[in-house]
C-alpha cells in the first residue's frame, strides 16, 4: 500500500511537470560525442478511448492584452425583429460573423452574444489581428444583396431625364438568399477582378424572368444601400449565373464575395466598443510581469528561509509545488491569462505562504510552552486550520462575485476583472491545499514524524 502511494505520487508529479513544460523549447547540446537535438512541448492528448475522441493540448492561453489583437463589441438593432425570432436572428448573426471572421485566418476567434439590460450585443475577439478597420468593415456589413429594376415610368420623357439610379427603385423578388455561391473571377477581356454569382435553382428562374422583362434596360445590384453595378441587360439570361463588375481591386472583390457567401446579417449591428492592442506592447508587459514574479518569488523564499529556517525551506518547497500545480490547472481548464490575471496569480503567491506562517507561528507558540516538536506540530496544524479557513472564505467570496460564473447580466462581464478573479480564486484554493496538506506531508517526511 505504501509503495503504491509513492508510485502514484511520482506519477502525478511527472504528469504535472509534463503539463508545465515550456512550449517549443529547442534543446540542442552535445554529450559524449552524441548530438542531442529535440524540441520540448507540453503534454498533448489526441486519441480515442472507448470510442470517445479526446483531443487536448496543454498550453498557456494568453488573452488579447498579452498576445495582441482586437476586441470588438457590436450592438444589434432589434427594433425590426419580432420577439420570438430574436434568439434565432442573434444566433444566425453570430454564425455569419464567425464565417466572415474565419476569412481573416484568426487562430482562436471568440464570438459571443451578450444580453444586457434589454440590449443585445455580439462581442468578437480577434487575437493577432491588428488591421482592425478592415475587420470592422467586413464584420459589420449587413450584406443584404438585392436586385432592383426600373420603376415603370408614366411617360417616356420623365424616364430618360431622371438619373439612372433614381429610376432603379423597384425591388425584385431576387435577393441574397437565392445565391448559392459567390466567387472572385477575372473578366476574360479586361482581366479586371469581378464577382461571379451562382444562383440556386429558384434564383436562376427568377433571374431569367427579370432579365427577360428588362431586355435593353438596366438592372441594379445593391449591397445594403450601395449600388454595386447596374448593367444593361442584353438578352434573357438562363443557366443561373451572373457577374458583378465594377472598379474593384482584387481584395475588394474577394471581401465582397465573402460577405455575400456568408449571407446577410438578419439584423443591423453597430460598433460600440473596440480595443486594439499591438503585439509588441503585450509581449513586453508579459516579460516584465514574469520577471517581477520571479524576483518576488525569490524574495518570499529568501524571507521564509531566513526567518523560519528549515520550516521556511519546506514552506518554500510547498510554494514551488503550488506554482507548478496552479500552472498545470491553468493549462488544463484552460484559463485565458490576461495581464490582471497574471497579477492575480502573482498576488496569490504572496498570499499562499500565509497559511504556512499561521501554522508556524502557532507551532512556535506551542513550542514556547515547552511542548515537544511533534505535539506542537499536531496542535499547530489543528488550531490554525480554523483561522485559515475563515480568512480565505472572504477572498473566495469576492473572487466568486467578480468572476460572475453564471454570467449574470447585472454584474460586470469584462474579461479583465474576470481574469483577475479566476486566477486569484484558483490560486487561493490551490494554496489552501499546498499550504496545509502538502506542507504537512513534507514536514512529516523531513522531520521523520509518523
Amino acid at each position, binding site marked *: 500500500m505504501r509503495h503504491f502511494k509513492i508510485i502514484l505520487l511520482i506519477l502525478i508529479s511527472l504528469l504535472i511537470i509534463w503539463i508545465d513544460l515550456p512550449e517549443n523549447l529547442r534543446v540542442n547540446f552535445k554529450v559524449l560525442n552524441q548530438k542531442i537535438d529535440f524540441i520540448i512541448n507540453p503534454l498533448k492528448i489526441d486519441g480515442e478511448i472507448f470510442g470517445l475522441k479526446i483531443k487536448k493540448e496543454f498550453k498557456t492561453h494568453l488573452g488579447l492584452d498579452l498576445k495582441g489583437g482586437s476586441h470588438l463589441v457590436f450592438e444589434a438593432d432589434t427594433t425590426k425583429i419580432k420577439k420570438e425570432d430574436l434568439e434565432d436572428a442573434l444566433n444566425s448573426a453570430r454564425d455569419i460573423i464567425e464565417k466572415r471572421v474565419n476569412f481573416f485566418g484568426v487562430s482562436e476567434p471568440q464570438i459571443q452574444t451578450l444580453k444586457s439590460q434589454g440590449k443585445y450585443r455580439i462581442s468578437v475577439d480577434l487575437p493577432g489581428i491588428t488591421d482592425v478597420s478592415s475587420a470592422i468593415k467586413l464584420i459589420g456589413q449587413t450584406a443584404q444583396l438585392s436586385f432592383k429594376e426600373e420603376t415603370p415610368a408614366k411617360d417616356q420623357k420623365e424616364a430618360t431625364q431622371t438619373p439612372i439610379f433614381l429610376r432603379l427603385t423597384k425591388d425584385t423578388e431576387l435577393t441574397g438568399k437565392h445565391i448559392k455561391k459567390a466567387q472572385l473571377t477575372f473578366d476574360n477581356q479586361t482581366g479586371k477582378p469581378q464577382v461571379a454569382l451562382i444562383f440556386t435553382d429558384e434564383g436562376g428562374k427568377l433571374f431569367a424572368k427579370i432579365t427577360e422583362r428588362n431586355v435593353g434596360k438596366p438592372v441594379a445590384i445593391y449591397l445594403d444601400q450601395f449600388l454595386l453595378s447596374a448593367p444593361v441587360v442584353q438578352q434573357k439570361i438562363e443557366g443561373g449565373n451572373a457577374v458583378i463588375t465594377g472598379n474593384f481591386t482584387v481584395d475588394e472583390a474577394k471581401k465582397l464575395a465573402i460577405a455575400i457567401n456568408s449571407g446577410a446579417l438578419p439584423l443591423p449591428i453597430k460598433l460600440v466598443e473596440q480595443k486594439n492592442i*499591438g503585439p509588441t506592447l503585450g509581449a513586453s508587459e508579459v516579460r*516584465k510581469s514574469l520577471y517581477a514574479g520571479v524576483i*518576488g518569488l525569490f*524574495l518570499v523564499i529568501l524571507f521564509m528561509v531566513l526567518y523560519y529556517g528549515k520550516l521556511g525551506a519546506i514552506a518554500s518547497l510547498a510554494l514551488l509545488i503550488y506554482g507548478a500545480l496552479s500552472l498545470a490547472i491553468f493549462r488544463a481548464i484552460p484559463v485565458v491569462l490576461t495581464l490582471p490575471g497574471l497579477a492575480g496569480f502573482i498576488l496569490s503567491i504572496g498570499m499562499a505562504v500565509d497559511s504556512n*506562517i499561521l501554522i508556524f507561528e502557532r507551532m512556535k507558540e506551542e513550542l514556547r510552552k515547552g511542548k515537544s516538536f511533534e505535539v506542537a506540530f499536531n496542535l499547530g496544524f489543528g488550531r490554525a486550520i480554523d*483561522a485559515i479557513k475563515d480568512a480565505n472564505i472572504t477572498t473566495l467570496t469576492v473572487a466568486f*462575485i467578480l468572476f460572475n460564473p453564471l454570467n449574470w447580466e447585472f454584474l460586470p462581464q469584462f474579461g479583465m476583472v474576470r481574469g483577475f478573479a479566476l486566477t486569484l480564486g484558483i490560486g487561493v484554493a490551490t494554496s489552501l491545499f499546498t499550504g496545509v496538506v502538502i506542507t504537512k506531508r513534507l514536514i512529516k517526511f523531513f522531520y521523520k514524524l509518523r
Partner: protein
Amino acid sequence: MVNFLKYKVIYFLISLTVIGIGLFSIFKWGYYYSIDFVGGTNLEYQAKKNISQEKVKKILIKEKIDFKYVSINQKTISIKTKPLDEKKIDQLKKILEKDLDSSLTLIKSETVGPTLSAENLKKTVIACFLAILGILVYMSFAFKSFNYALAAFLAMIHDLLVILGSYSLFSHFFRAEVDTLFITAVLTTMSFSVHDTIVIFDKIREYLQEEGQKDIEYFANKALTETMVRSINNSMTIIFMLLALVFLGGSTIRFFALTLLIGTITGTYSSPFVATPILVWLEKRKNKN
C-alpha cells in the same frame, strides 16, 4: 506582552491624518475616469522621432477633435478624446503622419461608446455592493457577535477611505484613472482587510473562552502580541510580490499593483490598530451598561 492599546490615540491620529489628506484630495481634485466608465477613445502611437506635445495638440485643435489629454513619453504619443469612429481614427493617423512628418505605428486603440460605459459603471457599482454584502453576511456568521462584526466593518471602511483617498492623489499627480482594475483592487483590499482582522479576533475569542470573561483589554493586548509577527510576516510576503510588480511589472498594471500595495499595508495596519481598539471600546461600553 506589549501593551499595544496604550497608544490608541496615536493610531487614531495617524488614521485621521491619512484619511484627512485623502478626503481633501477627493473633494478638491476628484478622479480621472477611464473610458470604460465615461466613454471615449484612447489612442497610442509609436513615432520614429521625437515629437512635441504642442504640435500634436495644435493638429487636434485644427482637426476639431475634442481631446481631453495628450502625453508624449519618449516616442510614444498617447491621446485621449471623446469617442471617435473607425473612419476618423484612420483619418487622424494619416493627418498626424503628414503633419508630424514621421511614420506612426498604432500600438493601442480603444473606443468605448457612451451607452456601454454608463452600463459598465452601473454593473460595477452593483458588483461592489454585492461583494460588500457578501463580506458582511460572512462576517456576521463568522463572528456571531455584533460588536466583533461592527469593529471589523469599521476597520474595512477605514481601509476603503485610505485607498480611495490615496488613489485620488495618484489620479491628480500621475493621472491614474479609475478603471475596472482599480475597482478590483479596492474589492480585493476589502476582503484582505477582513481576512486579517479575523485572525486577531479569533485569537481574542479563544482567550476569552479559555480563561473566562476577564478583562478584554488584557486579552486583546495578549492576542495582538501573539499575532503581530504573523500579521507582519504575512503582509511582508504579499508586499514583496507587489513591490516587484510596481517597480518591475509593466506600465498597464502599475497603478493596480500600487493600489493593492497600499491596500495591503492599510489592511495590515487597521486590524490591530483600528479594529481591535474599536472592539475593546465597544465591549467595555457593553459591560458597563
